[in-house]
């Protein structure tokens, strides 16, 4: 490795600039390279408008929950409760719509408010009781799993789901864009504006960048951290709702696996554009890499075991390119 280092030091300015581009855009280049590869491998099925819409549609829910998680990690905390929370929200919305016959908009508002409350609880335990966020959110997540179980006795709520509720997720918007994609764009766009373009976003970034400095400068660090958890909780709720609509049922632990996907997207994204910083745009890129990777491998029809191997490799290579480019360029 030190050979690489020494030789890199002798690189021409042009080579350094090229490496710099890799450092900034490594993950995006990786995404594009992957899309190009799959387009060559499966020219008929992969690079079509309908497949890309399909992939985006599929990935929207993961992107929304990952967008929320991004806010939690931007303020320097982890939120492990999101998957469990989304599962609970899915059961709850189905229950509210099917059993309690609430109008759908009201049910949606109630569930998203509950998501905010869960975020508030997480934030309170982390900032005021000062429990490490890993334990706090894992604990809250476990409790939520229990509550989901208590609400549904573990049995999925299936019968009598109204068509209008299914249309939340299956419906399409103007120009035939699926609702999920619209929701994703609205949420991620809103989060991006919030973080990058508002005064509050400055405080959010400051808390994540250096909580001590932010505190000394008079930023109410605890409040900002709580806000991060609340947004994370609300996004989990929205994902839970859309998932229940997509599945057509409220099922315990249906959304649990989003936790890992969201983490992968967020951490993949942190290697995009900025070195190791979490940001909404990066998360979007990260989620796209995961979604297109899954889709492309599926469509190509790689054997199951190699799908795993390649998915793992895609993660490492996408980040590795950016990181290596960065460390070589900066030496």
């Amino acid at each position: 490795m030190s050979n690489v280092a020494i030789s890199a030091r002798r690189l021409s300015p042009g080579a350094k600039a090229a490496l710099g581009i890799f450092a900034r855009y490594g993950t995006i280049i990786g995404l594009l390279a992957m899309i190009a590869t799959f387009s060559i491998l499966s020219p008929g099925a992969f690079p079509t408008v309908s497949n890309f819409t399909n992939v985006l549609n599929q990935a929207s829910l993961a992107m929304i929950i990952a967008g929320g998680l991004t806010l939690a990690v931007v303020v320097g905390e982890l939120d492990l409760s999101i998957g469990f929370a989304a599962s609970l929200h899915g059961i709850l919305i189905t229950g509210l719509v099917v059993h309690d016959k609430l109008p759908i908009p009201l049910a949606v508002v109630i569930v998203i408010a509950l998501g905010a409350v869960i975020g508030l609880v997480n934030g309170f335990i982390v900032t005021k009781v000062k429990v490490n966020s890993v334990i706090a959110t894992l604990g809250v997540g476990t409790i939520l799993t229990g509550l989901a179980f208590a609400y549904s006795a573990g049995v999925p709520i299936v019968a009598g789901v109204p068509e209008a509720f299914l249309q939340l997720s299956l419906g399409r918007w103007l120009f035939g864009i699926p609702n999920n994609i619209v929701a994703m764009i609205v949420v991620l766009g809103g989060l991006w504006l919030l973080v990058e373009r508002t005064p509050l976003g400055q405080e959010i970034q400051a808390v994540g960048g250096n909580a001590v400095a932010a505190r000394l400068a008079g930023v109410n660090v605890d409040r900002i951290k709580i806000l991060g958890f609340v947004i994370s909780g609300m996004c989990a709720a929205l994902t839970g709702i859309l998932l229940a609509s997509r599945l057509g049922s409220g099922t315990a632990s249906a959304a649990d696996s989003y936790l890992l996907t969201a983490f992968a997207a967020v951490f993949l994204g942190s290697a995009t554009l900025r070195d190791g910083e979490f940001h909404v745009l990066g998360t979007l890129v990260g989620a796209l890499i995961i979604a297109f990777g899954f889709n492309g491998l599926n469509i190509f029809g790689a054997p199951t075991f190699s799908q795993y191997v390649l998915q793992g490799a895609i993660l490492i290579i996408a980040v590795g390119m950016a990181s290596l480019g960065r460390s070589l360029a900066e030496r």
Partner: protein
Amino acid sequence: MAAPFLVARDIAKAFGGTQALKGVSLDIAPGEIHGLVGANGAGKSTFIRILAGLNHPDAGRVEIDGQGREIGTPQRATELGMSFIHQELAFVPGMTVLQNIMLGVPKKTRFGLTDWRAIARDVAPIARRVGISAPLNAGVKGLSTAEIWLINICRALVRKARLIVMDEPTASLAASEAERLFAIVRDLSASGVAVLYISHRLDEILSLCTRVSVFRDGRSVAELAGDALNRPALVEAIVGGAIRDVQRAATARQRGDVVMEAKKLTRAPKVHGVSLQLHAGEVLGIGGLVGAGRTELARLLFGADRPDSGEMMLMGRPYAPASPAAAVQAGLGLVPEERRAEALFLSKSIAFNLGIANLDKLAFGRYLPLMNRRARTSMAGEMIRSLSIKAQSASTPVGRLSGGNQQKVAIGRWLQRIPKVLILDEPTRGVDIGARAEIHRLIRQQAEAGMAVLVISSEPDELPELCDRVLVMAEGRIVRELTGPAVSRKAIVEASYLEPEAVMEDHPA
């Protein structure tokens, strides 16, 4: 005098078993420049942190404009018109200069979005006034400590603070930057802003302040003003007695063989063609302005960065350390510039921090790779005594020490190891006058025992006090060598402003 802006009475504060403040009182009038001095660990920073709402006093009261106030949080302190520049500088590395200036300050918006253009328009004149030269939209990552200080000062001005508290502002500033800071402070004072000014540099205190409070062991022991405010009185109040003055080694000592040599060392953009020789038994100083590239040079010598070109020799053999670990193996030691970020393990004990570079001495033996904890404790105890580190015990976490005492731990690590070459980057930053004399004495003692010592300092008086020979750097090049009697404050400052191109040829150091 006008009614005081701030009055603090009998403030007390304990941390666990340490009584950091036993009862201090102080008042500050609008427009006053009030000095605050005291030895390391006297409680100055703790007092400031209480005013800032970061710590909560166990007893005592604070009045602002004559009204009793509870300062629960930093936000509250800000609302009450106070602004702080803490000893351990705080900024957000990923943000721009402007974003850092506006940290925690309410911002102008358009349609709910931050209106950076309008903000920049408002901030630009203030930034110019305090002398920020970097563009407002540049990242703060590469900026010098001095510029980050200026950012903090700028923030206080943008906030229109009525009291600005500065905890050792000049510790990391060069003379010229310090001069500019003094001008700003006087300016502020003239416009009615009160300044509470903490420093270990008594000259500054004497020239700036009209009134000075002295803390010793957590108590206010004196308030000096007018004629009573002079150097001997200050020293007396700080240490509670007279102090041995630092004595410059009268005769130039025998210097030994060349231990370390650098030839045309270059690492763009900070270091260009630096050549130097370091002898056993000498204390070689490197002077210059902040940003002259001295830290970068030290990092090259220590293997923390790799040069673009040039060679190094150690003990007559080629030396190209691939890492600091290799440098340490080869017999080097480095006390870095930023102690908290680069030298210390804040949550770990003093013994841990001292022992980390001396692990080979702490094992029971080659075949029993367990650590001799008793040896570690006793070694730490010795160092605590010989550097008079103010701490409860060797197991106190370093993060709980005062700034100056932390610095002593960072140095002590290497004094214990006794390397062949010791590089000290700003060794007495934030260290009180007593301890500073002690550290100087130890450095000289090591040199006398044969160690080769390289000292980087931005404090004008330090190098003449300490060094046998001084190299002055400017813009990454060595521009002058001063030896023996030629080493003086004046000569160093003069050389610091030399144009490197003009002198390169005739001063091949």
